[in-house]
């Protein structure tokens, strides 16, 4: 028995006693029996992030519904069921899909143009030092600038209409994507660069063959951030200058419903914004991630 006080005290050094060698037969794998056992189904289900997120959504829905009923003031806080009813009515009548389509079309144009410009700028930036400085100066200047702040200027230059909206979206996408892509390019390991060079790759082929795929995790996170910025900017721009799109989008829908004091409609608009956001993040970007960086083992460093 070791006394509690003595535990952890180093025993005094004595020269080791010589111990016998031995060899022994190991039990063959076939006699050990099962080496792998599947987890019980409850644990396997709980391992799916989809299930866990679903549970969170259900809890939030219950909280919302009970708070709405307890408050009993549909003008300031409609219940979930009222919101869903008006969401359903406006989807069925085609109002929301139509507004959503207007918004998404402008969004995709702006997003695409922003990515194109970002690609151009970063490709230049990896090839010459001057362009690198140009890119970092421009990003430092423009990245912190809220896109909405440029809207008055855009309206002055491009007038009321789609071009103004596209201008502000490009602004919000371009710098985020360019910044991430450039950082991604810079972090590509030297070994990979040298490997690409020994293949005889140079210039644009080197960028598309080595740099872009190697920096893809960073590029993808830039695309995600750019998407979120673009989506926010557009909805906000429509809320402020909604009718400028000629035919209103989702932001305009929310604005209209507020003017009509249809608060459940406002909530329906907000929910649509969220659903689109969840869909793009949870389905589109997740799929891209699964097919690329996860499959390549490049996620999370």
């Amino acid at each position, binding site marked *: 028995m070791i006394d509690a006080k003595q535990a952890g005290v180093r025993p005094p050094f004595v020269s080791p006693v010589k111990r016998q060698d031995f060899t022994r037969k190991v039990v063959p794998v076939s006699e050990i029996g099962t080496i792998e056992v599947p987890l019980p189904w409850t644990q396997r289900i709980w391992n799916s992030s989809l299930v866990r997120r679903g549970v969170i959504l259900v809890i939030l829905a219950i909280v919302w519904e009970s708070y709405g009923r307890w408050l009993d003031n549909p003008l300031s806080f409609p219940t979930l069921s009222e919101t869903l009813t008006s969401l359903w009515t406006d989807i069925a009548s085609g109002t929301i899909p139509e507004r959503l389509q207007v918004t998404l079309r402008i969004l995709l144009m702006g997003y695409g143009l922003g990515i194109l410009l970002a690609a151009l700028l970063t490709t230049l930036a990896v090839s010459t030092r001057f362009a690198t400085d140009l890119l970092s100066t421009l990003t430092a200047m423009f990245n912190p600038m809220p896109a909405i702040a440029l809207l008055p200027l855009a309206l002055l230059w491009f007038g009321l209409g789609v071009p103004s909206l596209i201008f502000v979206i490009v602004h919000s996408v371009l710098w985020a994507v360019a910044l991430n892509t450039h950082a991604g390019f810079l972090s590509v390991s030297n070994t990979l660069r040298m490997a690409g060079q*020994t293949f005889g790759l140079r210039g644009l082929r080197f960028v598309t*063959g080595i740099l872009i795929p190697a920096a893809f995790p960073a590029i993808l996170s830039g695309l995600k951030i750019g998407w979120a910025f673009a989506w926010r900017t557009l909805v906000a721009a429509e809320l402020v200058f909604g009718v400028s799109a000629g035919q209103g989008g989702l932001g305009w829908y929310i604005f209209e419903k507020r003017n009509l004091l249809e608060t459940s409609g406002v909530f329906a608009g907000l929910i649509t914004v969220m659903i689109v956001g969840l869909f793009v993040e949870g389905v589109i970007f997740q799929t891209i991630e699964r097919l690329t960086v996860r499959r390549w*083992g490049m996620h999370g460093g």
Partner: protein
Amino acid sequence: MLQPNVNDSSGGEALLQVNGVTLQYRTPERRVTATYRVDFDIHPGERLVLLGPSGCGKSTLLKAIAGFIRPVEGSIRLSGAPITRPGPDRMMVFQEFDQLLPWKTVRHNVTYPMRCNGVSAEEANRRAEQVIESVNLSGFIDSYPHTLSGGMKQRVAIARAMAMRPYILLMDEPFAALDALTRRKMQEELVALWEAVGFTLIFVTHSIEEAVLVGSRVVVLSPHPGQVCAEINVDHLGGPNSSGEDFQAACRRIHDLLFPSAGEAQ
């Protein structure tokens, strides 16, 4: 233009000539001379090992042969033509495991450089399967690199370089990051592969044992800045049909060249 170099070490023309090469690299504060007036030749079919203590510039020398660094003095010529930039005629295997393209499977990692250099898809695939077979990775041909162990990744890198059929294969301590057991196995496999296929190899290492096991000829470099202090033939000293004594003697001889004071003390 690329053709394998069959076991033809019978004198003749040097494939690569390194003449009086001084290499310098720049840190933000200073210019450091890595090697000073290094000369050596390599003939087709040789396995030349550049051996030296760390900091003797052997890796820098290999990078210069690969074309990443220009010598400040002297010349490096491949078949008589000066080397100006990296190219597929001098494929390189690096020490780091991340030299494979993580977004391509083993097969496509091997075929990609060939496809970049105008080899037809069919031919590239045929060569890839053959060379992947020769490094014993046929079962993993459609796996992504991140699912492979370090030793397997290095084998893929060797396969990728060999499939290009370069004039010279350059290896920069390719087994240094492996565990000792795997390293020993890879060294034996490399020599077996050379016996089976035949290629010209420049291999950089700081391990005397590895140099004698892998090489047919060892260039011993002095410590910083690197200069050639000896060239020693070590062919077939490390193989299975060698007497251990020859091997030990060669190791000791090289050891004494590298650490002269320690040699005198013994």
